[in-house]
């Protein structure tokens, strides 16, 4: 063959090997016109010089290790040239492509018919005689999965993993193996692939194409896909090329474009060389005229189409069955077969041979009649087959079938793709043309070339109707029911709504959605959709809503194809009172968007208002709903009237509890009217009750932070008080009256009639004894084992107040941690530092930000410290001068007490009086602390936050549109609001202990409450993994509840602080195991320790702690040390507050777990 080579320098240089091929081909692609490009590539591919070798590298891999190893070409983004370039290559290797297409058809037919042995042999033939490819690799996985299941799939993956030196193929193998897995659901597949696609950069579109099949890509995406396909084999390139040509033909964005013309040129170039039905379809499309030649399969398909249209269904079933044996990759055969079975009222044959073909027939059959019990499975099965075949024409037709059977909106482009991917052309091919004249032209041409088939006449008749063309068409052999529907659709397309509405309603009522009458069910769905859309078009909202709701409850899968979004939108535009009174509207609102609580509330509120109901449970008082158990009522109560919706019903519910109680009432109603879901409602009631009970318990605990035990205080001082009281009484027996003269004088008392130093001295002695009794009692009240300071220390000062305040800032990373307990330096937040570095801020800036946060952290910590060390303290004459619990009594106050006491003639009365005096003081102090928290402390924190905000704004003043700055500004604003709420909540802790009616509790309730409290204390406690294994059934006495909770909160706190995971609680695992024997409950609480924790130091600490907690005499002394070990506090609570025998052992086990073993008497 002689080649005429263009004489341009770039061409000569490339051909003679004077330039690096990568640059040479780049120049060629940019500079050559289409004709020159064809000449030069034809030459290079045939003489096989260096450039030729470069070009064909990787085109025909002879093993998987050679797949996707083609040479790289510079990306020049000239799609027209790329398309021509590829077409030239395909023209030069047409023989190989023809061979592949022939074998591919055989392979797919064998695979779908479960002839796996033939499929395997055919695949070997493709690999040996054409080439290895990504297509063959993908199909190897499909074949293995279908033949041997997951085991076969994974065995092949292992085998592929042995390939060395080709990472790309390993990656593709992994993806194809996953894609072929039968057990991987649509959701799992998309979830994993989408996550993977997020991180792979430019190659994303190419991989998405391999995983998801075609999409209506834009020009840039198509260029990218072609660019990455350069490295693939000839057959991979060809399959992608045809797909791209099809997309360009049907996609609106390429209409009348230059690229479309290039595709036409490519098709023209290839048609004489390549025998491919898809290429032929493209050629017919461009020519707008049928080809004259046809093969036996085309003839058979035309015959089947004709017989189906004239209602000869038995013959259709027979012919389809015969043809499917050899053309199982033609989806039209399945459709004709399945619909004919429906017309004949026959069931779909069983899939005894386990073939894809029979499985598909079954799920397609179900897709037409949508039986509720199996339709979801059918949908997912179709999805699976559409997924594994998405690289082929069969897969595209399958996808189009799914859209037609399950989607709301008709998608013309997908329909067109389906026609272009059909293995034969029927009259339906006219759907590819938007222009009715072109449709007519094609149909008449088809009729002329392929005889007078009923299907063609029906289409011609339909488009005559649409075009209002009165031309006569012979139709007598077509059944009336089929013609009737086509006439209706034509009238709808011509906007003859009024004429058609009555007709459609009649048809709608004549069909039956019941599965028993199969074809009726299929027609029912078609007519239902038409009628629904007609109501929408003509704004008949009431009828439309009624139609939608009644069908939704008849078969929700039928209603899924009704466009509820449009219905909802037209109703929302102007909802009439008539619509608002209907229960269907809140139901539609929920079906449309179950998460839009605002709209749900509005629909529900309108419904209740207009039906004069205050709350949902009252709807049964309405006549029309009395004793109703309708599906509408059940749906409304079950899904619409949720606590989230009802908590906005401000006219009837004033708290979360009230809304929850209404929900419980609704659930109880639902149990009666929807007994089949009784379990669901019982579970919900139980969950709400548990939530309420947990909230109640937490509230009780918050209200029990200030606590003291007057009975035990009195008991522990009884002996001493009795003794002193006796002395006091003895001196008092002198019985004379006195009066106070001079409180500043050491001799306070003088007789008012007979001045006597002796008597005065006696009185002074009496005062002194009373003062001792009082102060002694007061000290017990304040600092004794059952006294006030114990609860202040455990429930407020020991980290609680600090954590509640810091947590507000911690969740927004606005506060740093101290380097250690005694340090004044703060550690910078590593996550924030990372963000700064990523955003390119310099070191000085980062330090500046850290300083601001550290200063703020110090201000907050100092403020908390001041409260803990000075203010939340009990002030006496000698202790805690700034303490806000003022139990100090000056002389005048003491005298007043003395004066009152003389009237009391028993020890019990005296102590009752002391209690009263102390309680008045406590009450006053609590009031002052509440005032302090809600005013001074709150204001102080708000000022710190304002100052933090100013400093941050100043730091970012040159960069104030930085996203991080905007975010941090928002977080500061959040904190300012939240800290005010938090200080208000903290202020509520400071109330007198209430006489709580504690009910006995289970160990499960105890642990759950402790976990909930810990979540309130630590921002990330939610992240840590707490496992509870509780086998106890005993109940624990109610009055010990708050103390037991404190014990567990302290244990959890220890795990958070000392595990080494305080910066990342996701890694912390706490296991709580509880069992019981006759006398004891035995708790084992273990947590893992990070590698940074020094085990020897932990063991040493354990020794120290165990010494202290075993030292029962000095427990009280250790306990009073603020900031000391939580274990001493636990020991103290078990000893004095819970008053039970107990034993505690600490150890680090062999798995580096810190374990606390606590035995508590029942």
């Amino acid at each position, binding site marked *: 063959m002689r080649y005429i080579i263009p004489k341009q320098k770039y061409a000569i240089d490339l051909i003679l090997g004077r330039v690096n091929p990568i640059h040479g081909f780049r120049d060629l692609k940019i500079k050559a016109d289409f004709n020159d490009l064809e000449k030069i590539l034809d030459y290079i591919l045939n003489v096989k010089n260096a450039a030729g070798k470069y070009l064909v590298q990787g085109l025909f891999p002879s093993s998987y290790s050679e797949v996707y190893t083609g040479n790289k070409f510079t990306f020049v983004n000239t799609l027209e040239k790329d398309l021509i370039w590829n077409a030239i290559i395909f023209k030069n290797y047409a023989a190989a492509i023809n061979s592949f297409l022939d074998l591919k058809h055989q392979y797919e037919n064998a695979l779908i018919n479960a002839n796996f042995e033939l499929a395997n042999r055919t695949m070997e033939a493709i690999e040996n005689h054409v080439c290895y490819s990504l297509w063959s690799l993908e199909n190897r996985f499909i074949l293995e999965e279908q033949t041997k299941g997951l085991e076969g799939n994974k065995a092949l993956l292992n085998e592929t993993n042995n390939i060395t030196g080709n990472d790309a193929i390993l990656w593709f193998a992994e993806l194809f193996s996953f894609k072929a897995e039968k057990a991987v659901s649509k959701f799992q597949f998309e979830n994993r692939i989408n996550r993977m696609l997020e991180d792979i950069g430019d190659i994303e579109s190419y991989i998405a194409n391999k995983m998801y099949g075609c999409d209506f890509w834009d020009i840039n995406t198509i260029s990218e896909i072609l660019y990455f396909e350069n490295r693939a084999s000839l057959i991979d390139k060809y399959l992608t090329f045809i797909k791209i040509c099809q997309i360009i033909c049907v996609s609106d964005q390429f209409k009348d474009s230059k690229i479309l013309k290039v595709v036409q040129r490519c098709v023209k170039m290839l048609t004489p060389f390549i025998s491919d039905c898809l290429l032929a379809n493209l050629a017919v499309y461009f020519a707008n005229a049928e080809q004259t030649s046809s093969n036996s399969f085309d003839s058979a398909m035309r015959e089947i189409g004709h017989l189906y249209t004239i209602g000869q269904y038995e013959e259709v079933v027979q012919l389809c069955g015969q043809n499917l044996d050899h053309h199982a990759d033609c989806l039209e055969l399945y459709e004709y077969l399945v619909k004919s079975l429906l017309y004949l009222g026959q069931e779909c044959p069983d899939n005894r041979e386990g073939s894809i073909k029979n499985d598909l027939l079954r799920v397609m059959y179900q897709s037409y009649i949508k039986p509720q019990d199996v339709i979801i499975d059918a949908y997912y099965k179709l999805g699976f087959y559409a997924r594994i075949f998405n690289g082929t024409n069969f897969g595209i037709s399958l996808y189009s079938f799914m859209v037609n059977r399950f989607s709301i909106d008709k998608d013309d482009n997908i329909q067109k793709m389906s026609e272009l991917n059909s293995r034969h052309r029927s009259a339906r091919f006219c759907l590819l043309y938007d222009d009715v004249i072109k449709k007519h032209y094609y149909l008449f041409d088809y009729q002329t070339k392929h005889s007078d088939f009923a299907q063609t006449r029906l289409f011609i008749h339909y488009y005559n109707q649409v075009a209002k063309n009165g031309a006569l068409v012979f139709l007598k052999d077509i059944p009336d029911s089929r013609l009737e529907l086509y006439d209706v659709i034509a009238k709808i397309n011509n906007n003859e709504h009024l004429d058609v509405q009555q007709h459609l309603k009649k048809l709608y009522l004549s069909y039956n959605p019941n599965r028993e009458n199969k074809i009726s069910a299929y027609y029912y769905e078609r007519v239902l959709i038409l009628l629904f859309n007609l109501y929408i078009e003509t704004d008949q909202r009431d009828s439309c809503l009624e139609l939608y709701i009644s069908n939704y409850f008849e078969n929700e899968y039928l209603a899924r194809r009704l466009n509820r979004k449009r219905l909802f939108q037209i109703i929302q535009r102007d909802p009439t009172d008539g619509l608002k009174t209907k229960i269907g509207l809140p139901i539609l609102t929920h079906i449309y968007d179950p998460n839009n609580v*605002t709209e749900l*509330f509005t629909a529900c509120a309108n419904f209740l208002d207009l039906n004069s109901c205050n709350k949902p449970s009252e709807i049964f008082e309405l006549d029309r709903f009395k004793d109703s158990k309708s599906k509408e009522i059940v749906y409304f109560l079950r899904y619409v009237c949720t606590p989230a919706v009802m908590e906005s019903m*401000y006219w009837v519910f004033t708290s979360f509890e009230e809304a929850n109680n209404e929900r419980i009432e609704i659930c109880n109603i639902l149990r009666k009217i929807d007994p089949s879901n009784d379990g669901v409602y019982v579970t919900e009631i139980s969950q709400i009750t548990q939530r309420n009970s947990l909230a109640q318990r937490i509230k009780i605990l918050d209200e029990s932070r200030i606590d003291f035990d007057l009975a035990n205080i009195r008991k522990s001082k009884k002996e001493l008080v009795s003794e002193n009281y006796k002395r006091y009484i003895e001196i008092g027996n002198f019985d004379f009256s006195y009066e106070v003269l001079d409180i500043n004088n050491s001799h306070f008392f003088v007789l008012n009639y007979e001045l006597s130093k002796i008597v005065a001295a006696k009185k002074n002695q009496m005062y002194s004894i009373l003062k001792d009794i009082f102060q002694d009692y007061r000290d017990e009240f304040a600092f004794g084992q059952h006294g006030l300071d114990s609860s202040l220390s455990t429930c407020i000062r020991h980290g609680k107040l600090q954590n509640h305040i810091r947590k507000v800032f911690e969740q927004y990373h606005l506060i740093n941690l101290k380097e250690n307990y005694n340090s004044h330096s703060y550690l910078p937040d590593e996550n924030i530092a990372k963000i700064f570095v990523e955003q390119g801020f310099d070191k000085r800036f980062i330090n500046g930000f850290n300083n601001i946060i550290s200063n703020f952290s110090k201000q907050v910590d100092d403020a908390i410290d001041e409260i803990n060390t000075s203010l939340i303290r009990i002030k006496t004459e000698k202790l805690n001068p700034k303490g806000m619990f003022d139990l100090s009594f000056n002389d005048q106050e003491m005298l007043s007490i003395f004066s009152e006491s003389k009237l009391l003639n028993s020890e019990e009365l005296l102590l009752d009086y002391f209690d009263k005096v102390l309680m008045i003081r406590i009450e006053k102090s609590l009031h002052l602390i509440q005032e302090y928290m809600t005013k001074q402390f709150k204001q102080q924190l*708000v000022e710190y936050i304002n100052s933090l905000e*100013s400093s941050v704004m100043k730091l970012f003043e040159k960069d104030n549109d930085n996203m991080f700055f*905007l975010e941090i500004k928002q977080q500061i604003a959040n904190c300012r609001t939240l800290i*005010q709420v938090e200080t208000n909540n903290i202020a509520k802790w400071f109330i007198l202990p209430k006489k709580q009616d504690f009910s006995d509790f289970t160990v499960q309730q105890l642990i759950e409450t402790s976990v909930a409290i810990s979540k309130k204390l630590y921002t990330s406690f939610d992240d840590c993994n707490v496992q509870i294994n509780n086998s106890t059934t005993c109940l624990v006495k109610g009055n010990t509840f708050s103390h037991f909770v404190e014990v567990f909160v302290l244990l959890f706190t220890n795990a958070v602080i000392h595990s080494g995971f305080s910066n990342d609680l996701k890694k912390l695992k706490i296991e709580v195991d509880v069992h019981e024997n006759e006398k004891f409950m035995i708790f084992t609480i273990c947590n893992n320790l990070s590698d940074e924790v020094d085990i020897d130091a932990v063991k040493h600490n354990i020794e120290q702690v165990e010494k202290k907690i075993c030292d029962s005499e000095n427990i009280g002394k250790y306990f009073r040390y603020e900031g000391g070990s939580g274990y001493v506090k636990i020991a103290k609570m078990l000893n004095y507050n819970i008053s039970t025998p107990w034993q505690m052992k600490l150890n680090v086990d062999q798995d580096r777990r810190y374990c606390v073993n606590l035995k508590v008497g029942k």
Partner: protein
Amino acid sequence: LNFIIIEDDEYKAGQLSSFIMDQFGNMNIGIQIKESFQSGMREIIKNQYDLLILDMSIPTFDGASKQKIYAGRDILHEIKRKNITIPTVVFTQYTIFGEGEDQKNADQLDEILAMNYPNNYLGIVYFSSAFLWQEKLGKIIRDVISGAKTVG
């Protein structure tokens, strides 16, 4: 004139009422402050108000610490449902609301509120430690007082 502020941040509410009293104290203005969706709605239903200053993120009930991101919008929605006319200014310290798909910036929110509640919604005012908010809010209040700003 009766104004109602629905705001859970006492500091912000304090700044707002001080500003109104300082600037318009001579206009005999009564200010009612409510802190949640529930108490705010009950008050609006019970009494007539000439201006509503509304925080966007507030709790559902008084004293609840969890804020509902778009509770302010829900109030506007409910006011519309009840056919109540009350000129409303959204007073917020946030520039971004919500998360994920539900996230909106203040401009988007402004547009949505203006489109959905044209009878009541007057605009959005950003609160910050700078004093720009006072100028914008002052103008709106003056318009409301003088009746220049007509709604409905």
